[in-house]
């Protein structure tokens, strides 16, 4: 191939030179070029290396179906492997390089060595590399995994960056009456038709210019027509999106679009995203997605210098590149003739080789006028030449096969084996395309949804027919009747040919060049029984390369049909999956990356906590204070000091993340009575009660306190992580199961800032913060009492005397916006008394000492009895879960039950997650496990909570080992009551 840039013609702007680099060398092209056209004009021919065999590959097409010129774009953390050079718009500073080759694509050692390539026919992996099973050392997977290392290195294509992608991506949501995909004559006319009827239309084009195949024409009248259509679209208010691929169609007219915003820009604005991922919800969809030209399988049909006939026309008419000087164009249909005459007019010597012998006289006359030689009854048998094509050996029909014929020299071999409508997007909707024997292609089937296809995507081969079919499609999509032109449009029918080979010959002719799937591979699949389309695909990998079968699927099916002695429809077709063309994972993720990956929930006291030295930790989506280290303190120092201070003086802990649900209405107490296992019907106004909720299956779901603020007004608290689930469940109960209950519930978690204040001096501190200090006297606010309060400064709130730590303790809630003033106030009284702020770690220590359960114990698999709270399950009423908790397995006495754990040697530590087993028992599940452990400041040694079969009474005096082989090893422990500190609760009642 000796391509050259023409001095005039094409859509490129010769006044704007563009400098770019290819494999480290500097090249020039023009504005309007693609990377492929610029490289072609510069005489570069080998742009890629194939997947398995490392064969040299050049430009094979001018579009998304490209299987040869697959390159790596960019550098460093912006490196983008596996890009199609035919789709990359040229810009100043573009850097591209070859891939899957060493040292480079022009001279690849991998090809010389063949690596594993010579073995890599279809299915080879499955038959070998396993090792040598007769010998014991050959069993297992060890030997295979050695081979695998080599195979993985040889496989793959481009090299991805190891660095984080520095660019940003946006998500955009849109709605429209009609989405039109493709801007060829069909798409432009469809969009215009709908817009002129007042529809809100989005027109999407993957190219950087509108026009589709109109861009590839040499006739100036076509350009005029195109410009007029675009003007009309703009005045009709069509939203036009270029550089945008409709990559998938989903339920309810939803389309996924990828817009390339800065991929063609030398120095993009810092503010611009690289790409945008659009979710479009369309009332109707018209797919005018065009058709792709097929090649023919023959020996060495992958040589650089072999490309589709239409691609040559694109390079000529759009990019002003004459792709060869001495061109042989092999065809079996009419579409290639216009390419032939235009290439000849541009100065090339062109010979058309047509399989058909009945080519029309008009066609032949036109060729004669254009100076194009035509040979009929011939097909390509073998491309000649080493790294690039130097000629073609032809074949003629002989009986049912082929016989070798003459050889022609050439520097460019063009092939047109027919056209395949792009039915991919419709296939995403589950509509199976149907084979049309006359047109030798799959045509879209009708779709039950409002998705209509138009243009060459439905088998219209003439531009005028495409335009008419676009208008008709828009009308159909709007619910009107419309007349569609007849399909096809060629004077002489296509004569299908998929593969040319001499009988019995074994050669490399490619069905799917990108994955190096050959015709022989397809036959081997047949021979071994992989005859269904899906088996063929999986066994040979046909259609699984980055073009997803756009080039090769039809040929593969035809070969399988031939091998089976059936016709193509009997073999079937594979279903295309989204995306239509590969899309960046970064674009799908959009801005929801890094610290924005998931919502971060902060309490109203978040900033206040940080200002006072909090180190935060994740609790579900929440950030909560973990500990408040003072200078030089480790986490252990800090939490032990905090817990000690709470027991000796007092401490304040942010509990705002607890779920809070307002439960109101005349039936509120009845509702709570059904939801909680314990009695709530008679809870007095001004009192709080701790409650447990079960799931329907009788397992513990959540726990918390509920406060009766007035007769019909309750405030329920839940765990931090259980809040969402509890709310949803309560709503479900009220709306679906118990609609007769007059109860309204509302999540008020975000409305309240809350703290727990615990420790012997707590009452003094709170009293000092109150407008009326008597509010919290022991008489006025007894244990489990609830009150509305007013803090100094006029902050209204709620207080409840409840304790999770076992100390005299209160929870105070004020409206979120008053959280910080409340903290300032409380802290001003706490700090001078030597009190502290405490975090989750100290909270954990205090509750473990008391044997209170949290998420680690309530893991969704425990019953209320397991958790040692069986007394809270009322026997006088029914409640959610009360029936299914009575199933036999759940009543077994040997179920693991909550216990406390001390190390036998009090100086030792142990871990949550350790298993509890009988001393010396080294295998099996053990008798139980440790859920949580802490250093207990109150007891002066490490303690834990856990579950063990039968509970602590069954293990009194028995020796138990806490074993943690994945981390620490064994520690001898004692099993004790879970209530390890102040079991009678004297401190909190004080």
């Amino acid at each position, binding site marked *: 191939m000796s391509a050259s840039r023409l001095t005039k013609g094409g859509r490129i702007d010769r006044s704007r030179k563009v400098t770019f680099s290819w494999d480290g060398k500097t090249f020039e092209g023009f504005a309007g070029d693609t990377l492929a056209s610029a490289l072609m004009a510069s005489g570069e021919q080998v742009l890629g290396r194939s997947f398995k065999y490392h064969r040299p590959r050049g430009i094979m097409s001018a579009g998304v179906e490209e299987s040869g010129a697959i390159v790596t774009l960019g550098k460093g953390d912006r490196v983008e492997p596996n890009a199609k050079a035919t789709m990359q718009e040229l810009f100043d500073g573009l850097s591209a390089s070859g891939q899957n080759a060493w040292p480079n694509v022009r001279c690849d050692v991998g090809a010389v060595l063949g690596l594993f390539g010579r073995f890599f026919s279809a299915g080879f992996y499955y038959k070998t590399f396993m090792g040598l099973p007769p010998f014991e050392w050959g069993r297992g997977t060890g030997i295979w995994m050695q081979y695998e290392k080599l195979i993985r290195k040889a496989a793959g294509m481009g090299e991805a960056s190891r660095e984080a992608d520095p660019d940003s991506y946006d998500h955009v949501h849109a709605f429209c009456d009609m989405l039109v995909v493709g801007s060829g004559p069909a798409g432009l006319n469809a969009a215009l038709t709908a817009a002129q009827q007042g529809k809100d239309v989005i027109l999407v084009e993957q190219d950087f210019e509108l026009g589709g195949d109109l861009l590839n024409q040499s006739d100036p009248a076509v350009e005029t027509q195109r410009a007029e259509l675009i003007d009309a679209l703009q005045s009709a208010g069509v939203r036009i999106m270029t550089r945008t691929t409709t990559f998938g169609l*989903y339920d*309810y007219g939803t389309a996924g679009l990828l817009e390339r915003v800065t991929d063609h820009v030398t120095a993009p604005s810092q503010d611009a995203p690289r790409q945008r991922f659009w979710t479009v919800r369309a009332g109707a969809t018209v797919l005018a997605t065009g058709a792709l030209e097929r090649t023919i399988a023959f020996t060495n049909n992958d040589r650089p210098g072999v490309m589709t006939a239409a691609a040559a026309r694109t390079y000529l008419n759009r990019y002003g590149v004459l792709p060869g000087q001495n061109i042989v164009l092999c065809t079996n249909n009419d579409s290639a003739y216009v390419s032939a005459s235009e290439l000849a007019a541009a100065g090339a010597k062109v010979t058309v080789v047509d399989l058909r012998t009945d080519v029309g006289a008009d066609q032949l006359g036109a060729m004669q006028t254009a100076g194009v030689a035509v040979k009929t009854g011939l097909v390509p048998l073998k491309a000649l030449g080493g790294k690039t094509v130097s000629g073609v050996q032809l074949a003629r029909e002989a009986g049912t096969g082929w016989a070798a014929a003459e050889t022609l020299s050439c520097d460019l071999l063009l092939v047109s084996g027919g056209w395949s409508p792009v039915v991919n997007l419709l296939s995403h909707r589950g509509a199976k395309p149907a084979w049309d024997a006359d047109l030798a292609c799959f045509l879209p089937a009708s779709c039950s949804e409002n998705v209509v296809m138009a243009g060459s995507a439905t088998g219209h081969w003439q531009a005028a027919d495409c335009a008419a079919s676009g208008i008709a499609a828009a009308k159909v999509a709007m619910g009107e009747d419309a007349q569609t032109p007849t399909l096809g449009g060629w004077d002489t029918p296509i004569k299908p040919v998929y593969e040319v080979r001499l009988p019995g010959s074994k050669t490399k002719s490619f069905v799917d060049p990108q994955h190096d799937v050959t015709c022989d591979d397809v036959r081997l699949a047949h021979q071994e029984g992989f005859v269904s389309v899906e088996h063929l695909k999986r066994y040979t990998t046909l259609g699984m390369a980055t073009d997803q079968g756009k080039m090769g699927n039809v040929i593969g099916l035809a070969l399988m049909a031939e091998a089976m002695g059936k016709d193509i429809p009997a073999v079937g077709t594979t279903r295309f999956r989204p995306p239509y063309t590969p899309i960046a994972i970064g674009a799908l993720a959009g801005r929801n990356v890094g610290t924005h990956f998931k919502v971060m929930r902060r309490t109203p006291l978040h900033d206040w906590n940080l200002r006072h030295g909090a180190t935060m930790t994740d609790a579900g989506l929440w950030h909560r204070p973990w500990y408040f280290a003072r200078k030089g303190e480790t986490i252990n120092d800090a939490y032990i000091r905090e817990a000690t201070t709470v027991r000796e003086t007092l401490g304040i802990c942010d509990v705002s993340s607890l779920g809070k649900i307002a439960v109101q209405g005349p039936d509120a107490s009845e509702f709570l009575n059904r939801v909680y296992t314990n009695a709530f019907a008679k809870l007095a106004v001004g009192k709080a009660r701790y409650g447990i909720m079960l799931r*329907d299956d009788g397992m513990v779901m959540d726990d918390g306190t509920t406060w009766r603020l007035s007769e019909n007004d309750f405030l329920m608290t839940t765990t931090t992580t259980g809040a969402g689930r509890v709310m949803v469940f309560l*709503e479900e109960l*009220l*709306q679906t199961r118990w609609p007769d209950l007059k109860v309204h519930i509302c999540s008020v978690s975000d409305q309240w800032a809350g703290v727990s204040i615990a420790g012997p001096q707590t009452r003094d501190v709170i009293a000092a913060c109150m407008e009326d200090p008597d509010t919290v006297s022991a008489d006025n606010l007894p244990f489990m009492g609830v009150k509305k309060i007013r803090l100094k400064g006029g902050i209204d709130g709620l207080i409840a005397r409840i304790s999770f730590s076992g100390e005299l303790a209160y929870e105070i809630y004020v409206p979120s916006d008053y959280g910080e003033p409340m903290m300032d106030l409380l802290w001003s009284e706490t700090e001078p008394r030597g009190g502290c702020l405490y975090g989750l770690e100290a909270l954990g220590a205090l509750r473990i000492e008391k044997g209170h359960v949290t998420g680690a114990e309530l893991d969704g698999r425990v019953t209320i009895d397991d958790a040692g709270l069986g007394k809270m399950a009322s026997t006088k009423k029914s409640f959610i879960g009360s029936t299914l908790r009575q199933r036999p397995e759940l009543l077994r006495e040997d179920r693991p039950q909550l216990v406390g754990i001390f190390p036998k040697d009090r100086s030792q530590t142990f871990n949550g997650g350790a298993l509890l087993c009988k001393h010396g028992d080294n295998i099996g599940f053990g008798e139980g496990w440790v859920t949580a452990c802490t250093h207990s400041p109150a007891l002066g040694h490490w303690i834990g909570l856990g579950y063990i079969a039968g509970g602590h009474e069954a293990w009194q005096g028995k020796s138990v080992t806490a074993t943690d082989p994945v981390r620490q090893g064994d520690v001898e422990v004692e099993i004790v009551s879970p209530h390890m500190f102040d079991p009678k609760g004297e401190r909190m009642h004080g």
Partner: protein
Amino acid sequence: MIRIPCPFCGTRDHSEFSYGGDGSIQYPALDAPVQDWHDAVFQRENICGVQTETWQHVNGCRMWLLVDRDTMTHEIHDVRPAHPGMAKVLGVTS
């Protein structure tokens, strides 16, 4: 994207909603026998085709809805509030 016509909010993406489960299940009385509860909680017809199911407009009005939806095509035939009183007010009883 399934588009669900919420009777309270209008048509919205299904990602605003949360699928509940089989809406035909009649949960028994709290004191009903174990077998009744077992069947309600664990046993499913698992219809391939149109089934009545519950969805909650969890990122919207938070109403629980009864949705008649084809589990093969995802086509929605009917949506109404699960709460019969609400349905009555809206005049969409089924």
